């Protein structure tokens, strides 16, 4: 908590020293003293600041990225040569299951959540999200859920049924370890995190936009995030049902997915993919939002057809609900279902194509500047289009039945997810790094990072098209020399290329971490306030932003508000002629000078992390001992009562000395 008081005569210069003084509450409301530390580990553990939570989302997601990457490397090592002996069949099954689960649920989704948490309030001119404590709860729940899932490695073995965990592979008979139980419960927990995050961000965008920011002036990244949150809102409960049924089947002997007991094997497939297909857009739309932010900045042009990009994003969100069964063409749905889902799948290529066209038109005739974020953004256009094209070949059902469960599918979704989502996220990292940390990432090293990643991904995933069309099945743990084929189509050759590519890719990603180290060494320059000549609202504040984001809530007159404050249009009619009238430093100094004198931020809290902690305890209880469920539930109940009775900001008399109208205890802040 901080009540922020501004000194009466603030100097109009941009420096952290000009920040308002902060008073912290010394006592607390209720039983416990509230956590009020602004530095040290407690300031992170109990924080409800969306920026700190965003950074923590990012750090944890990156850690899981490394774990998922190591799993991928082990898979590629196993397949690099004939008769691989790196992994046993059992370990291999666990490896690909956890690789996919980790990358989808513990890396890409939370990495997007990191940007959403950090940037959405800044882009809409808000001081935090609508429910800061729920935001903290969401992060800790994701973290504990991810850790819980990964403890299965040391508790008897991880899940081994593939990331979509089809029956009957998910049943106890075929997967006797607790791996699938950990998987079902772990995803249940991370699902709760996503759901609370979705509600929070939707309310934030709908309700907390700065004055003047109508929905069609909302920055495109925030728009895409909102579409994603709606997808999460309605997709997560469906997987929740599926996971509960799976849990009841495995832990309480129900037979929801046992064909021998008369169950319908398609029930799981439908429930999973009704979630799973929107999930694809949940994964990729945040990256689309980032690309749509980055391209205009480095093309020095506004986004071409902003309304079209918004509406095509929303259209992808809607149509994304009507295509799930294209994952099930091989399951014998019947000709009518197959035809309908086939056509719907082709239709969804249209709004996606609209976006690609808009991006290209944004660059068309622009003054292109190929910085690292721009390179990544262009990388998305190219690589994602390749993935999109192979996706269209899946929408043709007869062709898809040939490709199902081959490496051709693996190639496709890696081009879409790595080429679309991950490259987009890296674009965002390079673009917003100076905003978040006040330092530029090294451009030269960034280029190496980019080119190794691009070469690596094409070497890895490109050959998989050939492998798949040659019939190499997905999830095959070993291949033999005498069945590898001859000449150009020898699968041994392409498997080796893919494995080499995977290590090139890993080297590229490694360079990113080296880059962070290099860029934050002592003596590196502080980033300028507006290093990219950016356009949107998050740049009208210091880098990194102050705890309260904006000294005064900005009033918005334009899409690309920051650009329009910097540049004046002296052209006539349709001819635009922009001249710079102000620098970022001047604009931010003016905001500081006219800042609000009294800013209330919500107070940190113990309860979110405690409530999150209760969830994995209960989940262990489901697997091991019912008393753990009782204990976890008691902790949850206690936390909820504590939470429910705690006001979001400590009252004035919670301060020592009292805050209102008296001399304040001044703490250093900056």
């Amino acid at each position, binding site marked *: 908590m901080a009540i922020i008081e501004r000194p009466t005569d603030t100097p109009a210069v941009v420096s952290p020293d000009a920040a308002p003084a902060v008073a912290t509450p010394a006592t607390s409301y209720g039983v416990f003293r509230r956590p009020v530390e602004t530095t040290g580990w407690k300031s992170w553990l109990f924080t409800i600041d969306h920026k700190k939570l965003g950074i923590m989302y990012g750090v944890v997601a990156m850690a899981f990225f490394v774990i998922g990457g190591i799993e991928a490397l082990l898979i590629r090592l196993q397949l690099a040569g004939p008769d691989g002996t790196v992994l046993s069949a059992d370990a291999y099954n666990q490896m690909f299951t956890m690789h996919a689960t980790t990358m989808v649920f513990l890396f890409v989704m939370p990495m997007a959540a990191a940007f959403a948490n950090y940037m959405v309030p800044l882009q809409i001119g808000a001081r935090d999200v609508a*429910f800061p404590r729920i935001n903290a709860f969401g992060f800790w729940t994701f973290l504990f859920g991810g850790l819980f899932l990964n403890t299965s490695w040391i508790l008897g073995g991880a899940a081994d049924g593939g990331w979509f965990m089809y029956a009957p592979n998910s049943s106890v008979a075929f997967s006797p370890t607790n791996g699938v139980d950990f998987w079902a419960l772990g995803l249940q927990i991370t699902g709760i995190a996503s759901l609370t995050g979705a509600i929070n961000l939707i309310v934030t965008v709908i309700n907390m936009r700065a004055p003047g920011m109508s929905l069609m002036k909302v920055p495109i990244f925030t728009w895409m995030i909102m579409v994603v949150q709606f997808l999460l809102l309605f997709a997560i409960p469906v997987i929740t049902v599926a996971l509960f049924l799976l849990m009841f089947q495995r832990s309480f002997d129900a*037979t*929801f997915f046992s064909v021998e007991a008369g169950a319908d094997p398609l029930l799981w497939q439908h*429930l999973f993919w009704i979630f799973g297909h929107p999930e694809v857009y949940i994964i990729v739309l945040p990256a689309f939002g980032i690309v749509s932010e980055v391209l205009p900045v480095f093309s020095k042009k506004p986004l071409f057809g902003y309304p079209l990009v918004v509406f095509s994003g929303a259209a992808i969100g809607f149509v994304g609900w009507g295509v799930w069964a294209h994952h099930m063409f091989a399951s014998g749905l019947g000709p009518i279902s197959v035809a309908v889902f086939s056509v719907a799948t082709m239709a969804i290529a249209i709004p996606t194509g609209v976006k690609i066209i808009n991006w290209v038109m944004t660059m068309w005739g622009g003054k292109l500047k190929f910085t690292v974020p721009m390179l990544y953004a262009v990388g998305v256009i190219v690589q994602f289009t390749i993935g999109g094209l192979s996706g269209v070949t899946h929408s043709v059902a007869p062709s898809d039945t040939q490709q199902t469960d081959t490496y051709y599918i693996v190639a496709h979704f890696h081009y879409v997810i790595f080429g679309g989502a991950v490259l987009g996220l890296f674009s965002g990292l390079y673009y917003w790094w100076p905003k978040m940390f006040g330092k530029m990432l090294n451009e030269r090293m960034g280029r190496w990072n980019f080119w190794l990643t691009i070469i690596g991904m094409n070497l890895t995933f490109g050959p998989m098209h050939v492998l798949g069309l040659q019939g190499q099945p997905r999830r095959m743990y070993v291949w033999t020399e005498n069945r590898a084929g001859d000449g150009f189509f020898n699968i041994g050759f392409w498997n080796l290329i893919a494995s080499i590519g995977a290590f090139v890719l890993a080297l590229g990603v490694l360079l990113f971490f080296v880059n962070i180290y290099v860029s934050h060494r002592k003596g590196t320059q502080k980033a300028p306030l507006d290093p990219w000549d950016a356009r949107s609202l998050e740049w009208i504040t210091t880098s990194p932003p102050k705890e309260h984001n904006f000294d005064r809530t900005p009033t918005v007159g334009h899409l690309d508000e920051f650009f329009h404050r910097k540049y004046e249009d002296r052209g006539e009619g349709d001819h635009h002629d922009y001249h710079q009238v102000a620098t970022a430093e001047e604009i931010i100094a003016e905001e500081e000078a006219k800042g609000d004198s009294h800013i209330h931020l919500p107070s940190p809290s113990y309860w979110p992390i405690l409530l999150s902690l209760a969830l994995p305890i209960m989940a262990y209880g489901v697997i091991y001992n019912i008393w753990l469920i009782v204990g976890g539930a008691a902790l949850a109940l206690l936390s909820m009562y504590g939470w429910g009775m705690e*006001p979001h900001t400590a009252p004035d008399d919670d301060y020592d000395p009292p805050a209102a109208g008296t001399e304040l205890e001044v703490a250093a802040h900056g």
Partner: protein
Amino acid sequence: MADTAVAPATGHDAHDDHGAHHSSTGLSNNKLAMWMFLGSECLLFGGLISTYMLYRGRHSENLGPDQVWDIPFTSASSFVLLMSSLTMVLAVSSAHRKDDRNTKVWLMVTALLGALFVAGQVYEFTTFYREGLGFTTSLFSSSFYTLTGFHGVHVTVGIIMLTSLVGMIGKNRVPGDKAETVELFGLYWHFVDVVWILIFTLVYLIPA
């Protein structure tokens, strides 16, 4: 549930005179969030109901729906639950009139009616179990207990929330706008009732 937001849209927050906060739509954050949550819940029950509809005929030689239902009894307990919606409305209305005493009374009555419904469900489950319909007896029984069990848990959570709210009103510890908090609880409660109308119709009334 009674979480409070950064942007208080109500006049009861001690700090909102500092004016930096606003709500773009004029709706309070809490209410918007509750509607979003309920929208999400629709899909949860949608999934559970679909599972039940798929499996309700699959009980081979074991007990089927038509052999176990006691429609008059379940009608009575459904009526009790529907009446609790009426008392919930009365509680919200009292809260808007700032009548704490009646708010507490009607919330308590709502909780009691809810508890009566849950008691009826416990009785019903016990009877079914004695007749030979266990959770794992058939696909029909598993999906039936799962669906109605999830609903029963929702009612139970509602009861805990209502009684806690009564306690918090009594001690004057409700953060934010009291009337709106009661209204939000009401939204949840009505939603759970509406779901029961669906379940009662689809599960009990339509013959398998």
